[in-house]
C-alpha cells in the first residue's frame, strides 16, 4: 500500500463517490461499441503507436535489477499463455482474445533479436514487457509456420549467455511438436540444461527419447528434498509406468520431499493430479493437508499473496480433475501464474482468505 494521509484519502474517496453519484443520476450513457468498430473499419489512426502503448504499459524501473534468471524463467513460463489460450478452450466461458493483425516480418525479426541475442534486450525490470514480447513471438510462429526454422537458428546460435530468455524455458511451454527439433539439438549440446519439467514437457509431446530420459531420471531419483523429479514421475505415472506412481506416492507421503519447497505448489499439484487420475483417492486428503498447513503458515506470517497462490492451486486442481483431458504438465506453471496474477490485480483481504481456507476444510 502506498502511504496515504487522511485528507488525501478523504479527497480521493470524495471523488470516487462524486463520480458514482454522477453515473447514478446521469442518463444512460451512449454505447460506444459501434463507434469503436466503425472507427477501426474506417481506418481511423490510433492516437498512439504500438511502441508508445508498450512503453506506457511497462511499469517504471525500480532500484537495482533483479537477476535475469528469475525474471526470464517467470517471463518465459507466462509467455506462451497468450498463444496457448488461442489453441485450447479457455477454462471459463469468456470471449476469445482478440488478435487483430498478424505480426509483421520486421517485428518477428526484431523479437528474435531482442529475446535471444545476448545482451540485445534493453535492461528492464519489467517482466511484463518480456512476457508480451514472448506472447507476440509465439503468436508469430502460430500464424506463419515457415518462421520456425528462423526460431531454430536464433535459439541454436552458439553463444546464448546473457540472452533475455533461456531457449528451453520458451520451447517447453509451447506444447507444439515443432519445438522438439530445436529441443533435441539443445540436448545434443547441453543435456545438463534440461530440468525435470523440460523432460516431462517434451515427453508429453510424444518424443520417445525424452520419455527415456524421464524414465532414467525417475529410476535414479534420490530422495532429496525438492529434487525428486515429480514432473517426470507424473508424466510416467499417467502413462502407466509403476515407477512414476511409486515416486509420486512417496513424494506425497513423505512430507520431507515437499515441505522444504513449500512455495511451489506445482510439484505437489502434479503429483496429486496424477495419483487421483490413477484412482488413489487418498491423495486428495494428503494434498488438502499440505494446502491447509501451508496457507495457515502464510497467513500467520502475513503473506497473503502466497496464501492465495496455494488456494488458487487447489482451485486449479479441482478444475483439472473436472476436465482431466485439458491437463498438460507444460501448462501447469502457466495456469498457476495466471491465477496468481488475477489475485494480484485485486486487493487481498486476509479475512476473505481465511474464509476460503475454512471452506477448504469442509
Amino acid at each position, binding site marked *: 500500500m502506498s502511504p496515504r494521509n487522511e485528507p488525501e484519502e478523504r479527497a480521493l474517496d470524495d471523488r470516487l463517490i462524486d463520480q*458514482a453519484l454522477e453515473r447514478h443520476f446521469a442518463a444512460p450513457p451512449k454505447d460506444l461499441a459501434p463507434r469503436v468498430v466503425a472507427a477501426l473499419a474506417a481506418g481511423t489512426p490510433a492516437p498512439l503507436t504500438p511502441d508508445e502503448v508498450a512503453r506506457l504499459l511497462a511499469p517504471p524501473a525500480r532500484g537495482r535489477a533483479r537477476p535475469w534468471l528469475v525474471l526470464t524463467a517467470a517471463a518465459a513460463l507466462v509467455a506462451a499463455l497468450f498463444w496457448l489460450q488461442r489453441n485450447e478452450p479457455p477454462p471459463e466461458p469468456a470471449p476469445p482474445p482478440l488478435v487483430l493483425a498478424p505480426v509483421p516480418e520486421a517485428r518477428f525479426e526484431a523479437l528474435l533479436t531482442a529475446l535471444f541475442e545476448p545482451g540485445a534486450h534493453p535492461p528492464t525490470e519489467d517482466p511484463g514487457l518480456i512476457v508480451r514480447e514472448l506472447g507476440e513471438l509465439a503468436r508469430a510462429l502460430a500464424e506463419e509456420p515457415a518462421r520456425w526454422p528462423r526460431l531454430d537458428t536464433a535459439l541454436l546460435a552458439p553463444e546464448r549467455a546473457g540472452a533475455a530468455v533461456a531457449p528451453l524455458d520458451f520451447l517447453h511451454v509451447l506444447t507444439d511438436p515443432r519445438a522438439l527439433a530445436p529441443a533435441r539439438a539443445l540436448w545434443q549440446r547441453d543435456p545438463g540444461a534440461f530440468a525435470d519439467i523440460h523432460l516431462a514437457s517434451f515427453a508429453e509431446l510424444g518424443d520417445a527419447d525424452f520419455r527415456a530420459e524421464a524414465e532414467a531420471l525417475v529410476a535414479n531419483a534420490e530422495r532429496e528434498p525438492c529434487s525428486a523429479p515429480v514432473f517426470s514421475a507424473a508424466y510416467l505415472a499417467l502413462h502407466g509406468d509403476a515407477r512414476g506412481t511409486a515416486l509420486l506416492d512417496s513424494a506425497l507421503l513423505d512430507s520431507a520431499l515437499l515441505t522444504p519447497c513449500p512455495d511451489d505448489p506445482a510439484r505437489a499439484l502434479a503429483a496429486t493430479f496424477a495419483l487421483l487420475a490413477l484412482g488413489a483417492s487418498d491423495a486428495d486428503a494428503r494434498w488438502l493437508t499440505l494446502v491447509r498447513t501451508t496457507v495457515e503458515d502464510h497467513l500467520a506470517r502475513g503473506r497473503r499473496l502466497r496464501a492465495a497462490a496455494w488456494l488458487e492451486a487447489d482451485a486449479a486442481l479441482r478444475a483439472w480433475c473436472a476436465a482431466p483431458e485439458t491437463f498438460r504438465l507444460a501448462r501447469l506453471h502457466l495456469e498457476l501464474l495466471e491465477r496468481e496474477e488475477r489475485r494480484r490485480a485485486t486487493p487481498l483481504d486476509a479475512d476473505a482468505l481465511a474464509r476460503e481456507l475454512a471452506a477448504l476444510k469442509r
Partner: protein
Amino acid sequence: MKLDSAQAGRIEALVRHHQGSLRGYLAFLGCPRDWRDDVVQDTFLALLGARLELGPDAATSGYLRTVARHLFLKRRERAGRGAPLDDPALLEEAWTAFAAEDGGDGTAEALRECLALLEGRPAEVLRRHYGAGEALVTIGSALGLEVASVKSVLLRTRTRLRDCIERRRAR
C-alpha cells in the same frame, strides 16, 4: 482495417464490457463529461492497434486505465489545463479498491440502496446537483440556502453515503 463479423462482434463485446468502468475512472480523474466518450474511444483504438490480446479481465482493465489516463493528460495539456493530477499510484490504488473485482458495479448497487434511504433536503440537493446539473447558486436560491450551506449539505451527504456504502459492501 478490414474486420470480419466475428472480429467486430468480439470488439463490441470488449467495449461493452469495459466502457462503463472506464468512463467512471475518467470521471474520477476529473475528465470533463464532454471529453469522456472521445477518450474512451481513443483508448480502445490505441490498445486494439497495439495487437495486444484483450479480454474481459483485470489485466485488460489495467491496460485501459493506463492508456486512458495518458490520453486524458495529453488532452488536458493541449487544452492548456496542465495542473498535475494526483500521484498515479495513489489514484490506481484508490480506484482498484473502489472498483474491486466488479468494475464498480457492487458500489453502484450499494449507492442505489443508500440513496433510497436518503430523504428531505440532502436528497433534493443531490438530485438537483447531480441529476439536473444545477449550479450551487441556483440550488441555493431554490431552497433558500447560502452557497456555502449547499456545499456543506453536499459534503455531509457524500460522507454519509460513503459510510453507508462501506457498511453495505463489508456485509
